[in-house]
């Protein structure tokens, strides 16, 4: 089951902006290696779930996976061939707002080659260009 908020104040949200770079959540804080987004966009809950499944298969219970993003934003859509008007569409999926530089996933307790392999597989599931980063300064 993809991630989703338990309680929300409003069912639908406005689109918002994706300008600028991440000033928070852009450092590896929990594990030793992380997957950093090099682009900005919306990361759907399904994509996060796909990344989680891929990572759990890759680490096979050895290390630990940290998911650093959460889909707080509801994205609405209007059915095809609908006439203009009649208001905003219904929530279609939930997404995380990702800015350039944000850490999406982190792994801990794995040697570097295994962590590299795991995060490279996860990167295939992401809709953005990503890079592997380590905890070391400038890594």
């Amino acid at each position, binding site marked *: 089951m*993809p991630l989703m908020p*338990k309680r929300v104040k409003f069912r639908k949200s406005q689109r918002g902006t994706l300008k600028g770079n*991440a000033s928070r959540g852009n450092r590896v804080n929990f594990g030793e290696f992380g997957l950093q987004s090099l682009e900005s966009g919306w990361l759907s809950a*399904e994509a996060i779930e796909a990344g989680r499944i891929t990572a759990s298969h890759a680490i096979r219970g050895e290390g630990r996976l940290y998911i650093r993003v959460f889909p707080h934003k509801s994205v609405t859509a209007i059915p095809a061939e609908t006439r203009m008007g009649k208001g905003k569409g219904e*929530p279609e999926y939930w997404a995380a707002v990702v800015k350039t530089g944000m850490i999406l996933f982190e792994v*801990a*307790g794995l040697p570097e080659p295994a962590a590299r392999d795991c995060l490279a597989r996860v990167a295939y599931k992401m809709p953005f260009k990503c890079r592997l980063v380590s905890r070391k300064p*400038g890594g």
Partner: protein
Amino acid sequence: MAETVELATQTRKPHGSNEARRLRRKGLIPAVVYGHEEGTVAVTLAGEDLEKAIRHGARVVDLKSDGKVQKALIREVQWDHLGKELLHVDFARVAIDERVVLDVRVELRGIAPGVTAGGALDQPLHQLSIECLAISVPDHIRVNIGELQIGQSVHVRDLVLPEGVKAMVDADAIVVQVKAPVVEATAGGVPGAPGTETAEPEVIGRKVAAEEEAE
């Protein structure tokens, strides 16, 4: 303990973000030196040398300017949003016999038998706050995990610290532990597949239909 690196600095006169950007374009890094009740001095350094020193774990450096050499602690380093490029560095003046408080990397050594037996290694403390002499800052604190079984942990009080080094965190804090493997529940159904029920989150403040009818 890392060797002390000598860095040549030049005083910079124009301040501000535009000037800093111009300097970075030339391969220089803006920095500031303060402390010891002397004035705050804005300086520039060669980016390549400074980056090399930081990547090699230098903590205390010798700053050389106008023929004078002064010891300084790298207090804060600012990186860009990707953590790739150096933006700015804060240097705090220190004396040789001064004790400083700083964070040092915790390095794990060995392979825990608990991990080989299927446990998961968890390291809640990646950096340890220590107090030590400015001239003898250790590069890292080494922790041997060669005998760590499932359910066992290494606390701050168990660490073998170099002479003259004092840990500044709670002695009971866990540095590293081997946890029993967690059996992950398999998610029911493929996300987004037809027939998968997508529940909606509860909306705060909205009354449930049944409650409304009762009213």
